[in-house]
């Protein structure tokens, strides 16, 4: 079984680190420490951390912070970032007003 699929591994107590206070998700103002804490609460994927704490749910939709959130989760779980399941990409690529998204015009 892949290490990360066994959610019962004991990650032990969180040892505070010097840079826990640094903002990682600039849109939702989530710090490194908060992300580490979520991992210790059992959130082992980007999507679970995102849904619990909101990094990656802000205006830029994770295009700025995903890379660092992933590295932090990987380090906390002692695995390579490649093993951490990423967030899923969804439209729209950029913020778009409701009235514009709904205003469908024929392409001539």
């Amino acid at each position, binding site marked *: 079984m892949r290490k990360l699929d066994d959610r019962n591994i004991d990650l032990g107590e969180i040892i505070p680190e010097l*840079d826990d206070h*640094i903002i990682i998700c*600039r849109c939702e103002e989530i710090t490194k420490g908060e992300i580490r804490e979520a991992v210790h609460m059992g959130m082992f994927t980007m999507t679970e951390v995102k849904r619990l704490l909101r990094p990656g749910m802000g205006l830029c939709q994770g295009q700025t912070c995903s890379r660092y959130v992933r590295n932090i989760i990987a380090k906390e779980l002692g695995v390579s970032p490649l093993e951490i399941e990423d967030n899923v990409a969804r439209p729209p690529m950029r913020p778009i007003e409701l009235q514009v*998204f709904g205003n469908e*015009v024929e392409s001539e």
Partner: protein
Amino acid sequence: MKRYHVIVIGAGPAGLSAAIEAASHGMTVGLFDENARPGGQLFKQIHKFFGSKEHKAKIRGFRIGEELLAEAEKLGVEVHLNSTVMGIYFPMNKITVSNGESTTSYSGNNIILAAGASENAIPFDGWTLPGVMGAGAAQTLMNLHGVQPGKRILMVGSGNVGLVVGFQLIQSGCQLEAIIDAAPKIGGYGVHAAKVARTGVPFLLSHTIVRAEGTESVTGAVIAQVDEYFQPIPGTERHLDVDTILIATGLTPMSKLAEMTGCDMKEMGGKVPVVDQYGMTSIEGLYAAGDVSGIEEASSAMIGGRIAALAAAAKDGYIEQNEFEKSYSDYQSSLEKLRKGMFAKENRGKTLAVTDEGLPISTNLLKHGFLDEEEITSYPGMTSRQGIHPVIECTQNIPCNPCQDACKFGCIQVGADITRLPIADVKSECKNCGMCVAACPGQAIFLVEEDCGDHMAAVTLPYEFRPLPEVGEKGYGLSRRGEEICPATVLNVRLNPVFDHTAILTIQVPKEMAMRARFYRGSRKD
């Protein structure tokens, strides 16, 4: 819903080239870009390109962009600007595009994704302060909009982006305080580092940024030396008096659109679509070209765009199989030429000790950004002899040969393999025309007359700053490290249109400085 034969998403080097290639085979092409002006990174790149003539070497990036755009429009490509592709929806090959007022849907027999890449950063204390931005962001402000990103600037990262943008900061009148990198050696081309070092900018390797100072915006930076695990070493902190911190620590492909389609993805400096040699993803008809499918540079992105469009044309029967194979092999060999040399992917992470020619690679260049004076005699481009002759301070194998084409008198040879170091041919006679000095993308060629009488020598160098010094002006000759090492008098300033904004400056220096003085600074007025 309007259906194009080819939809291209992103009008940068890869996208423009793909659109041109597809249209040249008679396919209808819709090219979409979210910006008001097309060209992607091309229009921010004001330096002359590397490579060879087929890669448009020695032409400035934004001029290449203008050329490609004109060619695309001539071939009938429909360019949709201010048009953001909000999503790709398979299996209907449909994209929804917003122009800020409404959304319109288009479909395409083929979709070529050329969305490029965006900048990484390294989160540090205060990295959210106004005044901390990506190096590409500063490049956009300077080169696209003519606005300085700041006054006193720290560059974090010594890859090609950090070096090229660093040089462009100086061209824009900003004060570049230092270039730092946590790595023990400079990441970008030695010639790019040398052009910055000789203006006096220090390189601090094995250094990282600890924090940005300031509450409302950046008022300073604290840097520190790092150990082999890139952790700051306590006690080595140093304050830098800067108001802007630029981050140039790599790029990540903007592959969200590809991910959305569900095509197979893999890890390569960020998630990228898995593509075959023609750039086709796991979904038939969906292609990816340029940085979005793996970070390289604009030159290879242009060829990648061509290949993807060529494959789409062949798939849909616009060209015969043999014509396709011929064009493909030409493009592929052109691409292979760029993927060689010291900075090629296969050498990434390796510490090479010698060049292809077996000559020692300058460690000083890698550590401090300039050649050490003892090292200069061991390179084929750096000979010493009577009369004016080119001194080519190009000491790393990079795919580039415009210097060979620039000299009509055979003074410079690179040979068939464009990654070989240029050789100064002692037999041919230099006519002091300055073409090679202006052509060199790395600004690494000087014309030196080691002895022009009464203990004086003349050094001709590339000068891309303003205001230009006047003939007869007295100033200082600067060493490769940027130190004032001797008095200098301006003998000549040539700004011929064919030099494309690279002024050719000749200064007179004491004879013993002929192989040391490599830059000029007017006497300080303050």
